[in-house]
């Protein structure tokens, strides 16, 4: 039964990985912008959750009503000031430039967080933090359960938004053919701005969950690393694949912990990263290589 317990934790961790990666996948898939700062944004959002809890005793899942719009506005600001001007470049140049700029943002956010909130680790301890749901011998933390539900909800919500609403379809159309979407009458500037804002806003979900674990200025790049592994596993442009990639990484890591020991978690993750890059570079959940 111990084995099943490990897998359960793997699924919970994997869901959190997916929550961090989904914003990165959305922004990269739709706009061709490589936003390395996505993990740092989750870190900033995590501090938001911590502060709301410390000062106002608001539960991290409830304070999403504040952190979501706040992160959206941060995204809009980032896009207008830094990324919008990159649209004039070809896609390769845009990818490289955005990577460099967002790497700078990682450093800025980490330093800013250290100055504002010190380098100490912080955690939100809610009443249900230690509570578990017992299923037979299996013990599932309520916070973990919430993580899984949130990851599934966000990813399927996003899928529904992109494929079944008018505004979502415009975003999807712009991602397929920027100029042609414009010819149809899509306001491409407004649409990409909103898409970037949404991609960044999603990091608020990750932040809420992260705040229940550990928040410190240094976690940003760690979360981005996980997100990048997920993007490679899922394949660039695959949004639904992110959830499965997250679960795969989480479970493989858990198996690593079970079989080899906790110190090798990172190694196991990078190992499947390399294996996938070697044998299926287009990703596991993309049917054919992208054009």
């Amino acid at each position, binding site marked *: 039964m111990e084995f099943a317990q490990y897998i359960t934790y793997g699924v919970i961790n994997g869901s959190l990985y997916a929550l961090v990666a989904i914003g990165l996948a959305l922004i990269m898939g739709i706009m061709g912008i490589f936003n390395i700062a996505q993990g740092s944004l989750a870190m900033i959002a995590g501090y938001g959750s911590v502060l709301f809890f410390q000062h106002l005793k608001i539960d991290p899942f409830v304070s999403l009503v504040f952190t979501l719009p706040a992160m959206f506005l941060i995204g809009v600001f980032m896009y207008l000031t830094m990324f919008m001007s990159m649209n004039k470049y070809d896609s390769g140049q845009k990818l490289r430039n955005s990577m460099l700029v967002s790497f700078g943002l990682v450093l800025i956010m980490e330093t800013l967080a250290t100055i504002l909130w010190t380098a100490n680790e912080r955690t939100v301890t809610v009443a249900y933090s230690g509570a578990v749901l017992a299923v037979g011998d299996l013990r599932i933390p309520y916070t973990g359960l919430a993580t899984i539900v949130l990851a599934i909800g966000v990813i399927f919500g996003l899928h529904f938004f992109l494929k079944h609403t008018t505004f979502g379809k415009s975003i999807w159309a712009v991602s*397929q*053919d920027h*100029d042609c979407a*414009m010819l*149809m*009458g899509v*306001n491409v500037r407004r649409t990409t701005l909103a898409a970037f804002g949404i991609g960044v806003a999603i990091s608020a979900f990750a932040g809420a969950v992260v705040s229940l674990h550990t928040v410190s200025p240094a976690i940003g790049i760690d979360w981005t690393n996980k997100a990048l592994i997920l993007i490679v596993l899922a394949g660039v442009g695959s949004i639904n694949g992110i959830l499965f990639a997250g679960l795969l990484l989480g479970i493989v890591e858990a198996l690593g912990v079970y079989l080899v020991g906790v110190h090798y978690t990172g190694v196991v993750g990078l190992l499947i990263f390399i294996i996938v890059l070697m044998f299926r570079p287009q990703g596991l959940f993309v049917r054919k290589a992208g054009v």
Partner: protein
Amino acid sequence: MLEITGIDVFHGDLQAVWDVSLSIEGKGITTLIGSNGSGKSTVLSTIAGLLKPVKGSITFDGVRIDTMPAHKIVETGIAMVPEGRRLFREMTVLDNLEMGAITKRARQKKNETMAWVLDVFPILKERARQRADTLSGGEQQMLAIGRSLMSQPRLLLVDELSLGLAPVVVQKISHILDEINKTRGIGIFLVEQNVVMALELADTGHIIENGCIVGSGKASELLASDQVRQAYLGMDGE
């Protein structure tokens, strides 16, 4: 209806269109013919707003449109069928059509227009739930035209209708375009390399060479003229 006055258009540093003036009458079919790289597609992209003229102006029913962004020009009643179809490949046929009716004006009558478009191109009804990239070339061209019609245009710009299509398919689609023009009163401005097809379909023709208009006239007269016969049909002036 559409008045182009002395436009110069550049691709980067390269000037593609030199002082072009054209007047396109409201109800008929007009064509702009020329060889590859003559600047004809550039003229069309400039009308649609994807490119901006550095000199001159374009007005549509008296409203100046060359200063508008492309997505606003659609709302004035100009729709473009882009070269190479440019469908939203990952979307279904229905979603593609729906994207054509994204403007506020078109959205209000979406269902009506959709019914009409599916009536004009019955094959699209059969393919309704298929992904656009699973269609044949001819079906894709029909979808591209249908998608542009969804915006309820008064003037339809068509870029290289015949590109990569079998002659029999080209004939079928140009027949449908003719019908749309006659029954719905939608003006058509066609840019073509297939000179015979274009001039047979159109009422008025213009010839463009190296970015300059070098001839204009009734399509039937152009088709019979030495200028066209020698330059484009490889015939002697007999």
